[in-house]
């Protein structure tokens, strides 16, 4: 699960889910991903316009990538956020890489192990991977199976602050079969491990083994990998320069340098994109209010990048008023979604009724369309016994129809939406108040322990690239009630539970499509979430850049800088 907190605010404040925090391959629910991934999304062919251009024979040119957050965490096995992954995916290599179409492409490995090719044996308990023999670290040392063994062991090493041990904790004995072949045993079969390894980057044993404190190493400040780019220089608070790795084992790199430029203010970032000081704006994107203007910029490609995230109002169903379905329905009717999209978001995003992205095969296009109808909303509330009192605000049995809505402080567009909702909902007698908090506070216990009354949030309801939303909707996924998922609104619905259970067990895509269509209908009817629109970050790059390939299966679109080059 992931929660996109949208539209990064201006400088400084971190917004956990800056746009583009895509969901990577999911966790927890293991079943064959690879087979289905390919059919997850289809992509427009924008990146192919210049496909005819040929890359230069020798790395030339520079690309300046504009970011509104500063990459600071360079050790690929330690905690980090999307911007850090730009460093990881370009300096380091993983065994295989998730492609835009959802497939895994071998990188350090010669092939992706499978039951068919014998790489996964004994019912998923024994894995064997053969490695390329032509890979060298940026310092010239050869890459071997020892490095893989070291990397995997480091993740589980006591005291090492590894980002995650999901999957890795199931590792048993790791055997270096030969310099370029490794095998390991797992304590239980766990097929998502394949996908997890696509985002596990290998670190050099020869540089790290001697370090006394693995949490703080020279390597962490000056990473050495096997990727298409080498670490060059860093001006803290300003930029990081990567240089071409001419001995890269794959195709490319074609660029001489890649500069990651940190401009903490989205407006300034756009201004610098306009003036050409940065060649591209990704992740946080271009503020929507500039979209119309940006589209017409000469020599710039500006587009709405795909995203699986949905912007929505998330009610806490434990709230005395919000737990009532008519209340939620009335709120939904009284929400002028089109104005929000058109006026506040400049018409950039697309309105949606579903928790599923429209590109998904599981998307249900036949959901009842939302109508802005305050009359209907009033009628629903009247019927449900919420009567208007002094000042026109409703209450029932002494319970006022009042609740708070929260989001990250400083996110101006969301703040505007909140204020707009206040006015819309006040008209039907609902007293909404705003209680925003800094990101470090709101996404802590307040969120995961369901302490909020309602949230304005951008998040996704998938498991990796699979449409299964059980982690978000299942009644077993309520953390407050001992669950392990992200059902923070605390929705419980027997029919939905049953459907999701069936969906997880089935390998029949047609059957699953039916299941998820029905589930979407239930959610649309019950409104455990009030969907507004599907995410649409505005990204852009300078014309002439070839190879840019937005990848919904990565967390950032600079994942393949090694294949980029400037066309004529």
């Amino acid at each position, binding site marked *: 699960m992931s929660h996109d907190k949208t539209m990064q*605010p*201006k400088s*400084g*404040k971190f917004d956990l889910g800056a746009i583009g925090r895509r969901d990577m391959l999911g966790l927890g629910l293991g079943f064959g991903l690879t087979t289905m991934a390919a059919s997850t999304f289809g992509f427009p062919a924008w990146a192919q316009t210049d496909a005819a251009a040929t890359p230069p024979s020798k790395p030339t040119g520079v690309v300046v990538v504009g970011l509104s957050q500063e990459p600071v965490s360079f050790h690929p096995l330690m905690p980090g956020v999307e911007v850090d992954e730009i460093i990881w995916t370009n300096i380091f290599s993983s065994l295989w890489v998730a492609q835009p179409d959802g497939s895994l492409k071998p990188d350090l490995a010669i092939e992706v192990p499978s039951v068919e090719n014998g790489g996964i044996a004994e019912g998923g308990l024994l894995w064997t991977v053969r490695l390329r023999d032509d890979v060298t670290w940026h310092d010239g040392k050869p890459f071997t199976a020892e490095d893989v063994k070291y990397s995997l062991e480091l993740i589980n090493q006591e005291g090492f602050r590894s980002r995650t041990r999901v999957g890795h904790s199931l590792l048993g004995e790791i055997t270096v079969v030969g310099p370029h072949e490794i095998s390991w045993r797992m304590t239980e079969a766990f097929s998502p491990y394949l996908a997890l390894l696509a985002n596990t980057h290998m670190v050099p044993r020869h540089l790290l083994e001697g370090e006394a404190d693995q949490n703080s190493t020279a390597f962490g400040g000056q990473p050495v990998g096997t990727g298409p780019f080498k670490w060059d220089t860093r001006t803290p608070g300003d930029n990081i320069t990567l240089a071409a790795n001419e001995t890269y084992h794959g195709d490319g790199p074609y660029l001489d340098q890649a500069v990651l430029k940190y401009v903490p*203010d*989205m*407006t300034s970032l756009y201004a610098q994109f306009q003036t050409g000081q940065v060649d591209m704006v990704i992740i946080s994107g271009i*503020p929507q*209010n500039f979209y119309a203007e940006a589209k017409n910029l000469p020599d710039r490609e500006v587009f709405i990048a795909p995203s699986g995230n949905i912007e929505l109002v998330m009610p806490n169903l434990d709230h005395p008023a919000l737990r009532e379905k008519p209340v939620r329905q009335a709120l939904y009717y009284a929400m002028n979604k089109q*104005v929000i999209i058109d*006026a*506040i978001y400049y018409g950039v995003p697309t309105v949606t009724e579903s928790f599923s992205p429209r590109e998904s095969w599981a998307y249900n296009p036949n959901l009842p369309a939302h109508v802005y109808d305050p009359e209907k909303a009033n009628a629903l509330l009247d019927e449900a016994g919420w009567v208007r009192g002094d000042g026109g605000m409703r209450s029932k049995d002494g319970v006022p129809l009042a609740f708070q809505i929260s989001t990250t*402080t*400083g996110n*101006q567009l969301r*703040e*505007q939406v*909140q*204020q*707009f909702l*206040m*006015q819309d909902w006040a008209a039907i007698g609902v007293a909404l108040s*705003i*209680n*925003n*908090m*800094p990101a*470090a*506070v709101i996404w802590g216990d307040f969120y995961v322990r369901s302490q909020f009354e309602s949230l304005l949030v951008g998040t996704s309801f998938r498991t990796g690239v699979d449409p299964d939303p059980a982690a978000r909707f299942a009644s077993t996924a309520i953390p407050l009630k001992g669950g392990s998922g992200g059902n923070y609104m605390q929705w419980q619905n027997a029919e939905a539970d049953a459907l999701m259970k069936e969906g997880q067990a089935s390998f029949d895509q047609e059957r699953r499509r039916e299941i998820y269509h029905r589930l979407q209908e239930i959610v649309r009817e019950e409104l455990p979430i009030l969907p507004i629109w599907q995410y649409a970050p505005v990204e852009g790059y300078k014309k002439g850049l070839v190879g840019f390939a937005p990848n919904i299966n990565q967390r950032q679109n600079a994942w393949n800088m090694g294949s980029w080059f400037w066309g004529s």
Partner: protein
Amino acid sequence: MATIQAIPISRSFLEGAVVKRFLSHRLATFGLATILLLTLACIVGPWLLPFTDVYIDMMQRFAAPFSGWHVLGTDAMGRDTLARLLMAGRISLSIGFSAMVVSMIIGLCVGLIAGFYGGILGTVLMRFVDAMLCFPSIFLLLAISALISPSVPAIVLLIAMTSWMEVARVVEAQTRSLKTREFTLAAQSYGAGGFRLMLREILPNAVAPIVVAATLNVANAILAESYISFLGFGIQPPTPSWGNMLNSAQTYLTSAPWLAIVPGLAITLAVTSFNFLGDGLRDALDPRADQP
């Protein structure tokens, strides 16, 4: 022996002179007048306007100033900038005043106690003041703002907590000096106790610098509110304050500059006025001018 007549000057000489000196300070008079006008406008203004500060009209967004009914234009949600400016003034000015009151209370207590009793207690208190002053004010504001949820009372407290130290210093120095003045010694020698000395002898004579400090404190509190709001830790919408109006105007600096210019001018005007007022009061209350 003949009875000597007191110099025949009216009793209100002192007060009269202060008022006169103050009024002769043109900038201070300007400051006072502006403050009164601003306050009046913020209190009365919102009732006179045809728009409320929260009325959203998406059809009217980004109306330029002097176009139609919106004298100062509208913001990104079509709300009337003037109405918001005046409502924001209520908030910003009340924050300024309240923060001043709280910080004065803290500063007075600490300063009086430290200055009067001195010794270890005084040293400990004043070292604490010194330590607080080691933090650049904005750093301190931001660090503490992480502690609190940004409601109006919390912001008041936050600003007060970072601005009482100067007051404490001023009061401490005054107290220390007044404690050794002859009239205090005289009171001490006829048996006046500690509280009486502090409240009856020392405090009334420290009024001038305290009043000046209070005035300047209001100015600084208004500024501080705008800083924390600008940096995103301030008053949350929909409550408007001058600071958060500026904060949300940044995005539209190029397309709707008036959204940034108007509240900025309001802050500058209010703060300048308080500074002028403080300056004038300082001159008018200067104890040196009391003596022939």
